[in-house]
């Protein structure tokens, strides 16, 4: 076990959007019934094959750190934000405000990482994220409960701004992440990206001047329907 490398991915979002059930679904492939509120942080791991099916296949541990979203615990959360390699932003499809709050969440995590001097973090501009190297993924939960006809083709503005991938699912049914489905492919592509950024791009890492424009270009991925 000491031979297997690991990467750390944070799962953040407002309280009650479904992060804990999402993490459980990803790691154990089964839905969980009634998790209580997450106090502090709960962790789970998944063994992921990097570049599965190719000659360079290697196993990695993906550590998913699910951070409790209560606003009263804000100051204490920052100790979990060290050494992060990727971020999954979770929002609730039945509650549009949770999507708008994703910007604040991203700001909170990045502020600890790079010490961005961005005031109180509530009026963030996307310019502050330009130098951001961390891969992002945006997931919308409770897809079964949205009665309003939401145009699934419409990319959420958060995902568009940061050039992140996104998909929607329902935490209670496994079929959304069944192997081979579009969502599963996107998830595994995201994990691969995180691993690559952490372990493999260090040889080719250019000085920060150049990395300004390339992440933006490289990350515009086309969004597709949920199956």
């Amino acid at each position, binding site marked *: 076990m000491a031979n*297997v490398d690991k990467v750390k991915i944070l799962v953040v979002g407002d*309280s009650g959007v479904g992060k804990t059930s999402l993490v459980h679904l990803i790691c154990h492939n089964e839905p969980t019934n009634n998790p209580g509120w997450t106090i502090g942080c709960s962790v789970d791991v998944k*063994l992921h094959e990097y570049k599965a099916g190719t000659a360079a296949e290697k196993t990695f541990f993906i550590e998913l750190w699910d951070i409790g979203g209560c606003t009263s615990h804000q100051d204490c959360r920052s100790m979990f934000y060290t050494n992060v390699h990727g971020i999954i932003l979770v929002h609730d499809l039945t509650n549009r*405000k949770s999507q708008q709050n994703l910007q604040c969440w991203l700001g909170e995590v990045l502020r600890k990482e790079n010490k961005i001097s961005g005031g109180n973090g509530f009026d963030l501009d996307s310019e502050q994220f330009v130098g951001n190297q961390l891969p992002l993924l945006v997931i919308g939960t409770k897809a079964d409960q949205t009665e309003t006809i939401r145009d699934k083709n419409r990319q959420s503005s958060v995902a568009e701004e940061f050039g992140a991938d996104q998909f929607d699912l329902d935490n209670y049914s496994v079929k959304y992440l069944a192997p081979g489905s579009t969502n599963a492919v996107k998830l595994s592509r995201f994990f691969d990206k995180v691993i690559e950024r952490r372990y493999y791009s260090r040889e080719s890492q250019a000085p920060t001047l150049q990395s300004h424009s390339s992440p933006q270009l490289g990350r515009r991925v086309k969004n597709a329907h949920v199956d």
Partner: protein
Amino acid sequence: MFLLQTIFFGGGWLFFLKILYKNYEVHHSGVLLMFSTTFALSCTMFVLIIFEIIGIMDSSSRYFHWKLQLFVILFVLIVLLPAYIGFFVLSNLRLVPQKPHIQVALTFVSWCVFLYFFWKIGDPFPILSPKHGIFSIEQCIGRVGIIGVTLMAILSGFGAVNYPYTSMFCFIRHVTDAEIQGIEKRLMQTMDMIMLKKKRIAQAKRENLRSAGQKIGGGIWGMLKTVGSPYGGSTENISQLKQEASGLEELSRQLFLETVDLHTTQERMEFSKTFKGKYFNFLGYFFSGYCVWKIFISTVNIIFDRVGKVDPVTRGIEIAVNYLGIQFDVKFWSQQISFILIGIIIVTSIRGLLITLTRFFYAIASSKSSNIIVLCLAQIMGMYFVSSVLLMRMNMPLEYRTIITEVLGELQFNFYHRWFDVIFLVSALSSIGFLYIAHKHASDTIN
């Protein structure tokens, strides 16, 4: 008059959207409507009291408005809000089929149950003088008054004790940076240990899956192998690892809560060094004095069965005139002073209630239950304001009391004051008890 009402309605609307529902989307605008209506009605009642004192608008139109307000607010509190709450609770329960007519029928049934209990509450209390029939406004007000007065007394009792505790310096524990760092380190170590266990579990599971896959192709030899080692490729005991992991998770939660506690204490320490903090500290002394006096007076009232007949304004003026020898126009000044006093009481009680409700809402609500909680809060708010009108009668000089007495009918006001005193005493003493225990527990866990 109606202009004022629309202003209050708008105020309630804004409060709801900007402050309460900061993090949630409004799905049912009916909830928003109900909340703003209740808020507008309550504020109008207070405004009517103020008009009474100042003397705006002639008394017959005031009387008319009073009656109208009272009728509408009682209708909202007793009929509309409980029905709406029942409807939302039922639609959230998974056992109930989601067809509309079943929901409406069940809501009606639950409303009848509510009405029955509401009526029963009034029986053990001597609310009314035996002059009135069954279905009168006084009956309803009496019962709403009881619930509201109980609420008010509990909140004031707790608030009076809690405020000095939170703002005074002598209660703040001393916390050093080293302590905080120590706990954070322990927390991170625990998280690492949990991670380790989970990794072992994940690897063990994968080994099991692999060896299970191989077993199928093994034939008889494979079957013999499985008899020998049921766990196949891995030597780990998964269920034991899971148990250890959940024990560690519990520990991490405790540690996190302690960290949060230490951080808040440190913030309080920082705050106490600022000017605002010192000002609050001074107020805290003042309030603790007030609280002690109030507890004392309540005890005296109960033991000696004394009911104050004279309000503070008139008594203050009496003292000023008789003992201090200051001569001034009693009638004029009593009006001004009572106006100011009542105004201050009204404003602080509205503000205090809204702040408490907001904090309560943030602590409890989640996206599923936010509708129900807001409606309950609206109900509480309505009852609170109605009963504060009742109790305010005590604070006004005799000539202004008449309209309240006239409008609210022949309720036994003295009983309400006595009941308030009793509940206030109970609530204040139990809050002191709770805070003491919490304080001891917290300082013990740190040391």
